[in-house]
């Protein structure tokens, strides 16, 4: 397996914004998945000048690996400050991999109401899907086999780093 240099996260954010601009109505609800997706949703929300505040989702209570991994210690409260019922939504995550997180997020969202539609935006797609889930907006596709995660420094700059699965 070759592991080339990781792409620059800030450039990917800029690329993602360009792909979304013009395709996202101002009353669309952005929902970032904690924690990397929430940082990204904040950036996209500002750049796309959306009318409604963005939401955040911690999907821990909806994960399908609870039986194997148990519950993490601190689950952030999900915060969706707008009506989900009948709204077009975009789920935002940092790394798209098996698709299981997105499945959990969709299950949780339906506990808040019935959205008109849900699309998916992801900073990177690392392949390896185990469910029929695809992103409508992707910053970059990276080599399969690389486990990466998003980091944020004190100045709010985003970067990608290799991580252990």
């Amino acid at each position, binding site marked *: 397996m070759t592991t080339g240099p990781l792409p620059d996260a800030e450039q990917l954010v800029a690329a993602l914004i360009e792909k979304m601009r013009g395709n996202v109505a101002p009353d669309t609800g952005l929902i970032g998945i904690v924690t990397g997706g929430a940082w990204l949703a904040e950036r996209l929300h500002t750049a796309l000048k959306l009318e409604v505040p963005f939401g955040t989702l911690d999907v821990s*209570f909806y994960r399908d690996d609870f*039986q194997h991994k*148990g*519950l993490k210690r*601190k*689950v952030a409260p999900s915060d969706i400050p707008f009506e989900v019922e009948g709204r077009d939504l975009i789920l935002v995550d940092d790394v798209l991999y098996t698709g299981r997180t997105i499945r959990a997020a969709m299950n949780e969202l339906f*506990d808040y109401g019935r959205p008109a539609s849900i699309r998916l935006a992801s900073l990177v797609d690392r392949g390896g899907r185990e469910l029929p889930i695809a992103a409508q907006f992707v910053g970059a596709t990276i080599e399969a086999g690389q486990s990466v995660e998003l980091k944020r420094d004190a100045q709010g700059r985003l970067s990608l780093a290799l991580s252990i699965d």
Partner: protein
Amino acid sequence: MFLTSNPQLNKNGELHHLLSIEGLPGEILLQILDTAESFVGVTQREVKKVPLLRGKAIFNLFFEPSTRTRTTFEIAAKRLSADVINLAINVSSQSKGESVLDTVANLAAMQADMFIVRHSQSGAPHLIARHVGEDIHVVNAGDGRHSHPTQGLLDMFTIRHYKHDFHQLKVAIVGDILHSRVARSQIHALTTLGVPEVRVIGPKTLLPTNVDNMGVHVYHDMAKGLKDVDVVMMLRLQNERMQGSFLPSPQEFFKFYGLTAEKLALAKPDAIVLHPGPMNRGVEIDSTVADGNQSVILPQVTFGIAIRMAVMSILAGN
């Protein structure tokens, strides 16, 4: 005595049964409080349900009557999407002569995943925990005079919610300590979590002998015992567990140990008042205090659901 194995923990040192607070490391108590914090958010949503325990069968085995505890366990299990079966055993098999272990073996054969046990005999949940299969979890919902760990935990959650830090607090537990499993659980939890000063206040007849061995300060006078405390934890007078004469009369008990606004004024001005319920108004607590702005008795009930959700999901995940 040095215990080589704690029946509540699995071989990885994780919680497998919740039988008593005694013997649990502070780290596990904090894990339960932190997890409960996460569930408070869930219970404030429109859909107060998460799918964590979907398909699990949880049996509420109540060998002794209870409304609040049974209901909050039932609500907690339902909010985790488990299937809950309520059994009031005093009116069922026991009256036909079946032993506790036979009852439990039968329910285990019905593919139970968790037993919530309330029993008038101290140690009954331990006995059940020793006899169930490895994949079944047992939660003590109150046994005799011994222990009521989820009540102790929800009290700790309530104290942390209002006072934030355990390490500066003076806490007084007032009333019938002798018959109270709640008091025992509270004392173990408070000392484990680092509360520097735990006081018990009550008449000599209602305090266990050697209670000071549990690391508490003993008072028989409310005026001295309540002075400058941050938290007042009232207990119910356990009339149903008293055989013989422990008290001249409930009126006399109220005169000396009932919490009135006057006595509460001796505590710190921002002291909070807890009570595990059900309350005997005019016996251990005056209505002006129970319904007053220092009372956190109803928030205790709400937090109790989050605590029980946390305990059940931690057990099921281990």
